[in-house]
């Protein structure tokens, strides 16, 4: 074959094509044959009941969290992260499976994830990781199935519910167990990467940190009588607080004291986390470790909602205001991930996105059944990528089914109780304190339809479960369910 070129331009075109193809081939061969990225360690810290707006890195003024602030210097911080459930069990199951509660099956505290539900720990164990779980409460213990994939699994309950008979060390067992495990892991020269899930129960009600945290931010009143209150009132007891607050007989200074106790718990946790972070640094493993700090839900404190759809605080379960739904989410990648800089991500993200994000960072396949999305592209190019604008939540606390969706402007919560439907629509822009029902029929219709579609797409794969009597008693004692 001969090609009759009229001029030399076409030779240059051919040459350019060949050079470009060669250049790309060489570049690809470098990429393909480069050393496979090493696997990072993963430390997943779930801080039960922590509101982001009580952390300094989220703008809180009282010095609750200097160690977390330092961690944020190396991390991505999600300004608008939301949980999929306000109950610890369903929410944690999502954090550990990447599935919605209806999919993993744990829709209420005391239930168990489906035996066939894959967990992050199982995936990482299969990939050669050493896996260990440390939890602080029964609802997350073996009975929940959340121990799946963990070679070692410990429960270290805290003593906060027993106000008068506890030693400070009782509240620190979980931290010490993690620190000890890390020390023994770091000893051998040849080792597999680790995945530790550390659940921290301290911040959860009742707010009653040991000294010096109990008086770090405010002097706390001794138990005393209170006008209109039956028996002795103890600010450290959540039941007393809730009763007095709901009966509108709580003097304002007790609110300040309770917030000081809540903040004291946060500071205690922060100080303990600092020791763990320092331990990782001194053993030379900090840079190779992904650290995730997230809470399972927030906490309604003394917010007062005029709509009577939201339950009053203090508490979180079955409460769908942003105080309860919004969570801190801080993610420190490993050095070798090569992020040029870390930043604040201001777009809305869901805790259902965490597992795909971690799999992506670790370099493991993101399985197709995961409804969330990896946030890694947003972390790399936050100005270029946008994130899904709707955040969904769903659970069945106390046998009531709540399904909801939150966008930047709207929040729609659907409630199904004993066959009776009710709903709440809030215009978050016009009514940021979430006080009033919005009666826009078109929005209600649109959100109902959206939730139906979402439910069909993420339909239940699990039969409703009954909890054991033993678990029921433990949950009642912990204040998680009613008698």
């Amino acid at each position, binding site marked *: *074959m*001969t*090609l*009759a*070129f*009229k001029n030399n331009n*076409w030779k240059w*075109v*051919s040459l*350019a*094509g*060949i050079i*470009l*193809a*060669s250049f*790309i*081939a060489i570049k*690809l061969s470098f*990429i*393909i*044959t*480069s050393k*496979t*990225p090493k696997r990072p360690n993963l430390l997943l810290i779930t801080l039960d009941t922590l509101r982001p707006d009580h952390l300094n890195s989220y703008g809180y003024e009282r010095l609750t969290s200097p160690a977390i602030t330092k961690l944020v210097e190396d991390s991505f911080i999600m300004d608008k992260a939301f949980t999929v459930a306000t109950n610890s069990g369903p929410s944690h199951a999502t954090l550990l499976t990447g599935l919605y509660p209806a999919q993993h099956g744990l829709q209420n505290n005391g239930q168990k994830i489906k035996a066939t539900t894959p967990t992050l720990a199982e995936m990482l164990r299969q990939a050669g990781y050493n896996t260990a779980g440390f939890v602080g409460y029964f609802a997350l213990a073996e009975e929940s199935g959340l121990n799946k994939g963990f070679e070692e699994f410990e429960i270290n309950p805290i003593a906060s519910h027993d106000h008068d008979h506890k030693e400070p060390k009782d509240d620190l067992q979980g931290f010490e167990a993690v620190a000890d495990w890390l020390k023994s892991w770091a000893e051998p020269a040849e080792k597999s990467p680790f995945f530790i899930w550390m659940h921290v129960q301290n911040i959860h009600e009742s707010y009653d940190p040991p000294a010096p945290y109990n008086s770090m931010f405010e002097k706390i009143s001794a138990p005393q009588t209170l006008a209109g209150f039956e028996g002795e009132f103890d600010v450290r007891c959540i039941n007393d607080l809730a009763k007095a607050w709901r009966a509108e007989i709580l003097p304002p200074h007790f609110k300040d004291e309770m917030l000081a106790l809540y903040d004291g718990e946060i500071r205690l946790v922060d100080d303990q986390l600092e020791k763990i972070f320092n331990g990782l640094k001194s053993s030379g493993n900090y840079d190779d470790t992904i650290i995730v700090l997230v809470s399972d839900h927030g906490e309604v404190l003394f917010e007062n909602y005029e709509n009577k759809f939201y339950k009053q605080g203090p508490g979180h379960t079955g409460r769908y205001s942003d105080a309860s739904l919004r969570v801190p989410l801080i993610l420190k990648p490993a050095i070798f991930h090569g992020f040029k800089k870390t930043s604040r991500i201001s777009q809305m993200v869901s805790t259902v996105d965490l597992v*795909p994000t971690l799999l*992506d960072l670790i*370099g493991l*396949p*993101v399985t*197709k059944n*995961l*409804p*969330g*999305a*990896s946030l*890694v*592209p*947003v972390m*790399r190019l936050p100005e270029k*990528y*946008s*994130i*899904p*604008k*709707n955040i969904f939540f769903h659970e069945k606390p106390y046998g009531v089914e709540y399904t909801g969706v939150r966008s930047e402007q709207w929040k729609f919560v659907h409630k199904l109780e004993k066959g009776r439907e009710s709903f709440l629509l809030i215009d978050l822009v016009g009514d940021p304190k979430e006080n009033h029902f919005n009666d826009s029929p078109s929005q209600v219709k649109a959100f109902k339809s959206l939730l139906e579609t979402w439910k069909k797409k993420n339909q239940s794969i699990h039969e409703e479960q009954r909890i054991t009597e033993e678990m029921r008693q433990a949950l009642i004692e912990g204040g998680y369910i009613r008698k």
Partner: protein
Amino acid sequence: MRGEQIYPSPNRVLITLFLLDAGMGILHLVFIGDPQWGPLFNLAHEENLPTWYSSFQFLLVSGSAGYCYLIEKKNNLGWLVVAACMLGLAIDETLQIHETLIDQIMLGDAGENLRHYFGATQDTDSLLWTVVFAPLIILAGTGLAVFYYSRLRNNRLLFQLSWLPLCLLALSAGLEYLEAKTLSSFAHDSMSRYELFTFIEEMAELIAASLLVWVHCQYATLKRVVKKATP
């Protein structure tokens, strides 16, 4: 005329193919949400009507290039190469050879490195083939561009219309990479963007093949006329 072979008009062929292309697009859009019929007409899926139609189109491109080879008496090996390439594409459309190849490549460390570099996830491995095979695609594209120039430059319209399908195929390859990036990033909201990209990409591919059939047929017709007029 009696005794004279009847050839289909290139323009009629093009109109027929364009109508079929449009039909594929319409069927895709009409049935996209239908769980029963959607998969049969979905442009993004494999082993369905659009895939078989696309395969048939590339067979036509290959056949028409082969016909050009037969019409030309000299300097005609290039047409055979084009015919072979297009036949390869037709087979690939149906047997999904490039998808199988890329799946194999992405299985090991190479796959992890590529995903890591391009910020893609394993879900979208099959869409990264345009990146992995980019050198081959560029070489083939350059070769086709130069070949069409060498054959068609004397007819300005034909020459320009031979490059348009090459540009559409390049767009299609680029969009496939964008689809991988889109899907890797956001599974929820990105679906609409992904579906839009897929629609444009597949339609570009169908239109490109139709145009190539027309270019080949038109070229063969012109050559026949010239041959007939040459004593």
